[in-house]
């Protein structure tokens, strides 16, 4: 049971390892999450309850309603599109399935606010389609644009959740049985497949709601210019652009409302989904239902969707970045590399170095923190997982303001304060893959090694570590990627000489220089894209279960 920790403590009486692990973890949680949140709550206490009423009057209240409304709309769209895509993909031929999977996983690595900039460059006023076809999507800068891009960003996750459930649970055998018994394909979908998918569908809806609630990059790029403020962008404007003390008070209130909505949603959905699990059916080895011509058409439709929502915007962004001046058509005679030359400015290279350095430091420390689970054993590890998840569940804007209040006096304008929020936020990302891998460690192998006389240290080195390696590398890379393009928290915490590449891009965008912004966004997208290649390779290594394929 207690994997390495239990074995080690039993074998050589090294309980301190476990105690130290728990101590370090508790101290980390106290310092990274609990203390800042306590200070944030304390600040509200100082302001008094009337601060809440004041903050919610006017713009603050509108922002809260906007965020909740956006979350609901995006969640519904994401569930419908994600589930449909998963049904299409998992019921297609193996090539079709591969295409859909690749098309869904790729966009996951596009930083949200780069996607927003690309969307505006492709479909916004004077965007690519407007210029060449005379078509632009109304409301790109405004609610419709924010909804669309947030949906596009969240669909792949819903797809992954539902597709995984489809692959494991709602076997085509049941559908076939229904069809053989005379049900139409629609009836089979309605009465067999969808009910079996209830939990993953609702789960992906909750996830999309939380993602939308916490989203900052997309509403900052497409919402602020259209006069649409969400909780996160209102908080950013109040904190970063207003000297009025009332704005700070409102930011505190909004940060706490944001975290409250997130926790209520997560708790409620846990209650709702955790209670009764849907019946598990045995996994059969039969392939998918024979795909028909309709399936091919559906796969083609999905691919068109992926190209329109992910590929075209990035190409449009590159074209804007290549254009000499704003307002000129992006044709070869107007092309220049001057905008990319700006990216090579020492200041921007410095920001890039800080982005990479922060991501490296966060990934390494988070992996070590996540690795503590190995030392403390599975049961205690589960508690640690819960603790780490709290930091991840706290919206970035809230955590950043809390850390600013908690440590701003001493650490304002340092990279350390940004690193602290990264650690608090990304801890769970490092913990989960490693804990999951520890859970899957084959006990027989460990026992066999011990029975053959291997010392605990040898067992750890020769069996545990090699088996955990993909998870450790995967955890490190995921945190590294998130750190590279993080903008929600760093935009609230940066100071002289501590801006990151994402913050620089946001600032240039806010100043209103589309060509340089596009060049920076393309650079950011490429940096993250290069970082994503090893992630995809490692993912494949983790995902491939032994004995299949």
């Amino acid at each position: 049971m207690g994997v390495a920790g239990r074995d080690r403590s039993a074998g050589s009486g090294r309980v301190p390892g476990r105690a130290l692990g728990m101590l370090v973890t508790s101290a980390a949680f106290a310092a990274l999450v609990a203390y800042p949140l306590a200070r944030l709550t304390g600040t509200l206490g100082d302001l008094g309850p009337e601060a809440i009423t004041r903050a919610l009057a006017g713009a603050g209240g509108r922002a809260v309603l906007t965020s909740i409304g956006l979350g609901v709309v995006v969640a519904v769209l994401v569930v419908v599109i994600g589930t449909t895509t998963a049904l299409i993909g998992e019921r297609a031929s193996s090539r079709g399935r591969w295409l859909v999977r690749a098309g869904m996983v790729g966009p996951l690595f596009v930083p949200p606010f780069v996607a927003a900039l690309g969307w505006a460059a492709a479909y916004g006023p004077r965007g690519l389609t407007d210029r060449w076809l005379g078509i632009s999507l109304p409301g790109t800068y405004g609610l419709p644009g924010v909804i669309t891009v947030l949906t596009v960003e969240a669909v792949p996750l819903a797809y992954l959740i539902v597709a995984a459930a489809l692959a494991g649970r709602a076997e085509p055998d049941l559908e076939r049985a229904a069809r053989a018994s005379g049900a139409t394909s629609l009836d089979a979908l309605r009465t067999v497949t969808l009910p079996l998918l209830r939990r993953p569908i609702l789960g992906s809806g909750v996830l999309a709601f939380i993602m939308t609630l916490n989203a900052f990059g997309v509403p900052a790029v497409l919402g602020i210019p259209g006069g649409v403020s969400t909780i996160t962008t209102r908080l950013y404007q109040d904190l970063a652009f207003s000297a009025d003390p009332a704005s700070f008070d409102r930011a505190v209130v909004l940060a706490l409302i944001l975290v409250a909505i997130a926790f209520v949603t997560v708790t409620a959905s846990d209650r709702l989904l955790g209670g009764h699990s849907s019946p598990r059916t045995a996994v059969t080895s039969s392939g998918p239902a024979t795909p028909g011509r309709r399936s091919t058409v559906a796969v083609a439709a999905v691919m068109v969707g992926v190209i329109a929502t992910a590929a075209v915007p990035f190409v449009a962004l590159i074209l804007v970045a290549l254009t000499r001046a704003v307002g000129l058509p992006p044709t070869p005679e107007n092309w220049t590399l001057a905008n990319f030359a700006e990216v090579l400015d020492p200041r921007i290279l410095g920001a890039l170095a800080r982005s990479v350095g922060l991501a490296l430091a966060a990934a390494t420390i988070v992996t070590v923190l996540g690795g503590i689970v190995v030392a403390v054993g599975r049961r205690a590890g589960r508690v640690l997982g819960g603790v780490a998840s709290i930091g991840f569940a706290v919206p970035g804007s809230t955590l950043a303001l809390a850390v600013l209040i908690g440590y701003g006096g001493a650490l304002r304008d340092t990279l350390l304060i940004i690193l602290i929020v990264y650690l608090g936020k990304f801890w769970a990302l490092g913990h989960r893959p490693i804990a999951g891998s520890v859970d899957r460690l084959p006990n027989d192998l460990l026992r066999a090694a011990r029975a053959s006389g291997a010392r605990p240290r040898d067992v750890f080195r020769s069996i545990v570590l090699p088996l955990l390696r993909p998870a450790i590398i995967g955890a490190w890379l995921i945190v590294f990627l998130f750190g590279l393009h993080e903008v929600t928290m760093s935009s609230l915490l940066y100071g002289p000489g501590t801006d990151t590449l994402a913050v620089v891009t946001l600032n240039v965008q806010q100043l209103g220089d589309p060509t340089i912004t596009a060049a920076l966004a393309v650079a950011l997208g490429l940096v993250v894209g290069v970082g994503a290649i090893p992630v995809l390779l490692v993912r494949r290594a983790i995902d491939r279960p032994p004995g299949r394929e």
Partner: protein
Amino acid sequence: MKVHSVMTRPANRVPGFRAATLVAAAVVLVAGCATAGPGATPSDPPASEPAPGVSPSPAPQTVAPPGGTIRLYSTVTQATVDAIVEGYQAVNPNVTIDLFRAPTGEVAARIAAELREGGVRADLFWLTDPLSIQQYDQDGLLAAYAPPEAASLDPADQGATFWATRHLNMVMVGAADLSPAVTDWGDLTDPALKDAVALPDPGFAGSAFGLLGAFAQDPAYGLEFYQRLKDNGAIIVKSPDEVTTGVAEGRFKAGITLDFSVRSAIAKGSPVRLIWPTSGAVTMYSPIAMLQASDNAAAAKSFIDFVLSGDGQAIIAASGWEPARADVAGGPPIDGSQVRPDWTAAFREQADLLAGYRAIFGE
């Protein structure tokens, strides 16, 4: 002396703070990794001793040269600040400059946050508009000084604690093919331009705030002018540059912006044109000031001296701005008359300015 108490106050004020910081440090140490990535900057500028006996004399070779670090908060265009910093450091190689450059609204928010946390950490402010600086002066943040070059400035362009460094001209920008003739501010309320005029946000850009002060004070316009713009569907964007690019992109037909912004866009080839209002551009000065709380006054003073010097003013002119000193040549062409509001009077009325504006354009 004062600085030190200000800087250490937050740590003493918050009970348990030190312990929490130690825990955080311990966590990072236990994790066995560098605490910060490359390019980490110290949290506080090193408290260097001001060079003793430095007088505001323009002959720095006769006294100990300034050294240490000064922290500069600026809203001035990046390229201009960079050029000035480079020129200054060529003369004062021992001074390190910690720069925070952001739009006016963001710098104001930072200053407010630092005041909340115990004190402003900057040594110098170099801002865009003449109104904000008077507020900081009134709040007692700024230090009095007599720069040797102040005599070369227009008396209306300075106070006891701040001095003009350059002039900004607020003008109009129009699409290259703008059809109804726009010649003066009032034309922006022409129904032919309904929903097609962009204005910069006074809460974001200092130049827009200055413009608001200028219009509010002018009986021919007043806040009423903003109401008429609003009634004609004028759209608020953030910065003057965003107005210019929005017009270039065709999102708007015309707007109010800085002549600098339009000239830069035209130089790159954007399809826009500069419209100098017939009643005159609104011209404001961009002030520089040093803080009472500066712990490196010698270096701060030397920086101000450099910006106001002939060399500094020439750098400003070369970077595309109108120098504050009339005796320095260069800078952009002035295509018409310039209206220079009484900024002292405008400041006296500024309390209601943003509120009045927000009542019209909302938040």
